[in-house]
């Protein structure tokens, strides 16, 4: 039976007096991969951040339901503990906090109990191997001095460990070379079958590796076109002018 994980209805979002999202409706079922594409400034990252509960954005009207529950009043950490995950476009650096410590505490928080050290170590080793990450990562400080690619790998490592029900991936492909993109895509595919995924991207190249079920085009804070994977191919070939002409 289809399980609706995320239902966004007529969502309007502002930052200060500036409207960013202007009436988005969207539904993601478990096992589905949705891709959102659009020009810079269209509101893609805002949508992901609002779904995750970033306090800088104000929902002026509309609703967001997750697993059938209105999450407007839920704090960010409560959303994470309920199974929502955002892979950040620009993950914050936390100097002085080692990756290993951070991962262990995050996993304990999201799962509601700390895994045994042995089980966690095994799980971590497997996930890092899958992403071709060196163990020296664990003693480095979170995102501090990381290259763009290293940051994105750490985001996907967290996704593998936190095992979310809904994954929001904000330009996870940016800053990745071809090999790293393939490894990260494999990581996404590993969890995608069991979750709902919303992938924000500018490029077809990620969608060659992670096949979306639905592609949406966002222009000026509105979804103006939705379709299958062929829509992304057309955008790659023809750009956004033809979509704007339809608005």
């Amino acid at each position, binding site marked *: 039976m289809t399980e609706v994980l995320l239902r966004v209805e007529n969502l309007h979002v502002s930052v200060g007096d500036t409207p960013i999202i202007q009436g988005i409706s969207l539904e993601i079922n478990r096992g589905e991969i949705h891709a959102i594409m659009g020009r810079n400034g269209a509101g893609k990252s805002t949508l992901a951040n609002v779904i995750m509960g970033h306090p800088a954005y104000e929902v002026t009207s509309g609703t967001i339901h997750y697993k059938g529950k209105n999450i407007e009043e839920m*704090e960010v*950490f409560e*959303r994470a503990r309920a199974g929502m995950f955002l892979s950040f476009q620009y993950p914050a650096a936390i*100097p002085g906090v080692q990756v290993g410590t951070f991962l262990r505490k995050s996993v304990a928080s999201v799962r509601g109990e700390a895994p045994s050290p042995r089980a966690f170590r095994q799980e971590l080793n497997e996930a890092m191997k899958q992403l071709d990450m060196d163990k020296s990562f664990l003693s480095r400080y979170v995102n501090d001095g990381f290259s763009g690619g290293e940051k994105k790998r750490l985001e996907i490592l967290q996704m593998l460990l936190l095992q979310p029900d809904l994954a929001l991936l904000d330009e996870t492909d940016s800053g990745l070379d071809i090999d790293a993109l393939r490894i990260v895509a494999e990581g996404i595919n590993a969890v995608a079958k069991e979750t709902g995924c919303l992938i924000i991207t500018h490029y077809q190249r990620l969608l060659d590796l992670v096949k979306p079920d639905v592609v949406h085009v966002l222009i000026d804070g509105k979804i103006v076109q939705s379709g299958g994977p062929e829509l992304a191919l057309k955008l790659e070939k023809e750009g956004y002018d033809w979509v704007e002409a339809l608005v």
Partner: protein
Amino acid sequence: MTSYLDATVPNRSEHLWRYTPWSRVHPGRVDSVPDVDSAIIKSEDFELTNKTFEPLATTDIARIFLNEILRTTTVVACDNNNGHIHIHAGGHSVAAHLHIACNSAANIVIHLHGEADWFGLALTGDINANAQLSVGIINELSTDSVMVRVDDWSLHRDARFELATLSMGGHRNKSDIRSALKGSNASLKQFIAVHGHGTRHDDHHIEIHHQQPHTNSHLLLNAACDDRSHSIGTGALTIDDVAQHTDAGQVFRNLLLSPSSRAEAIPELEVLANEVAAAHGAASAPINKEQLHYLMSRGLSKDEATSMIVEGFLVDSFTGLDSDLVREAMQTRLTVHLECQLIG
């Protein structure tokens, strides 16, 4: 030697005593010299020898006062040795003078603990030619204690010296830490982490004096201030005219965790040489909201995320330490302290 009772009590116009007047850290009435006991100094790792007290330079009222009350100097035989020294400050008023002369290499962690109402600590040392010394000082005094600490370190030719301070204990602390780079190619790295909580008042004055060419110094002070605490960091970096090709930097960073906490960061430079690199910076800010949001998006509550950021901020103070022994000791004690604070 200047007598304390003949000395002039400094007023607050003096840079050194601007934020913490001498009267607030004196063990009694400012015009008196009370009886002071000796603190207990123990170590299983180093040979300690008590000698007749060697007076401190009478450059300021705190050193003049300590000259009146101290009777012995405890000399640490540290060469080619690593380990811990414990100074227990119990009773009403206690004091200690520890002297370290390093001729080879050593790593020392000094733990300060006890419930003394007042504790006077003098640390002196010579890092002799080609020697490498790393010293960590962990202040875990009782939350009611007042501490006056004065340091005088001399770095000679090609000496390498690391001095780290983790300041978590005591109610009111005044530290006056002075280092003189007296030999060419001498190098000093100084790291200070301050955790302010309750009404804790913690004043660090750091003087670094480059007296010879090709000398380096680096100072980092990170202070995380919560509740109604107050942290002060004043730096005085002097580069003599002969100290060409000196490379010196001072950075003061304050993390303000509550609206009632306060922090001052005042680095000062006096550069008399013309071919040097000298930099200083100071910043005070509340918790970074993007860091908070990031950690909360990984399931940590706001309090848990804040604790993690604070711990990271303070741990990062010691990242630059080369000595594994000192760095791990500082970071471990810090983590234990913060976990105890969190549990309440």
